[in-house]
């Protein structure tokens, strides 16, 4: 790479470091105490864990938009996917080459399937009162799906099917429905009554887990296999 580019990059890098470092070191201490205000609001929120309360009660609008972003990314990924039907793509010789098939991996994935599903459900449920929650549980489900794919097993009927689409959409539409339901009762968006808030949050987290898991798996699985390069 040419010298001028390297020099310019180093200069920019040093400049950014100096500016940011100066800003970080000379910060002004904010006068409000967000953590304290949050601790006072936790009993109203329906969950005991502060992070879950922030994600799904106090800043639930951000989480709704985040799920929308994830859904858009997955839809674009699926749109750019191999257009051949799933059954034909599975038996492609080239895609079989990318799978690792050793007996240890095959038996390990069989053993891990129920364990990881159980772990995901536990993480989801535990998120109400200790570290955990929908995103961590969804990540475990996605990891299970990635392991399954790498071991060479495909759920051929699942790949381009209605169930996958339902799973992808369930999280966002469920969350959106729960978000707009208070509007029917004269309350603002996402303003759930405190007595129902805990149950609504658990239900939303459950569909979110499934949706996030399928979305992350879909993002991994939509990458082109060596056999299907089409220009």
């Amino acid at each position, binding site marked *: *790479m*040419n010298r001028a*580019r*390297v020099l*310019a*990059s*180093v200069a*920019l*890098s*040093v400049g*950014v*470091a100096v500016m*940011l*470092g100066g800003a*970080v*070191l000379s*910060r002004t*201490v904010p006068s409000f*105490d*967000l*953590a*304290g205000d*949050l601790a006072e609001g936790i009993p109203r929120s329906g969950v005991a864990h*502060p*992070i879950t*309360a*922030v*994600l799904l009660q*106090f*800043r639930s609008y*951000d*989480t709704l938009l*985040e799920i929308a*972003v*994830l859904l858009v*990314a*997955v839809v*674009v*990924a699926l749109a*750019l996917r191999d257009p051949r039907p799933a059954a034909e793509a599975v038996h492609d010789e080239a895609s079989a080459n990318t799978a690792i098939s050793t007996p240890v991996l095959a038996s390990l994935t069989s053993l891990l399937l129920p364990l990881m599903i159980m772990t995901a459900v536990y993480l989801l449920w535990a998120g109400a009162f200790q570290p955990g929650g929908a*995103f961590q549980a969804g990540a475990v489900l996605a990891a299970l799906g990635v392991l399954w794919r790498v071991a060479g097993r495909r759920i051929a009927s699942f790949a381009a099917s209605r169930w996958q689409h339902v799973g992808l959409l369930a999280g966002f539409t469920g969350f959106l429905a729960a978000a707009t339901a208070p509007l029917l009762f004269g309350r603002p968006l996402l303003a759930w009554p405190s007595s129902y808030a805990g149950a609504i949050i658990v239900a939303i987290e459950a569909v979110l887990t499934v949706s*996030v898991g399928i*979305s*992350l798996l879909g*993002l*991994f699985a*939509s*990458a*082109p296999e060596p056999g299907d*390069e*089409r*220009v």
Partner: protein
Amino acid sequence: MSAELVYALVGVILVAAAFGAFMAHTHLLRRLLAFNIMGTGCFLILVGLAQHKRAPDPVPQALVLTGIVVAVASTALALILFRRWFAATGRTALPEEDDE
């Protein structure tokens, strides 16, 4: 100098270094790596600065959690676009960069 400030300054170094690497490289995968490291540096600054000499604060932590998920979604999409670009043209850099 508390622990949180150390991590905030580490975040500053990561952002600066990754920004420099982003500018210097033309290979799209390396740029993607730099982009991800810059994002992680920003998250470290966000949480480190908020919790410097104060109690652990759930709000920036929740924002970072959201940020991690959005970062992986955009990285995955960028990789799919890169692989389509590579399949279509056989090159790993954008055309205006190939003059070098």
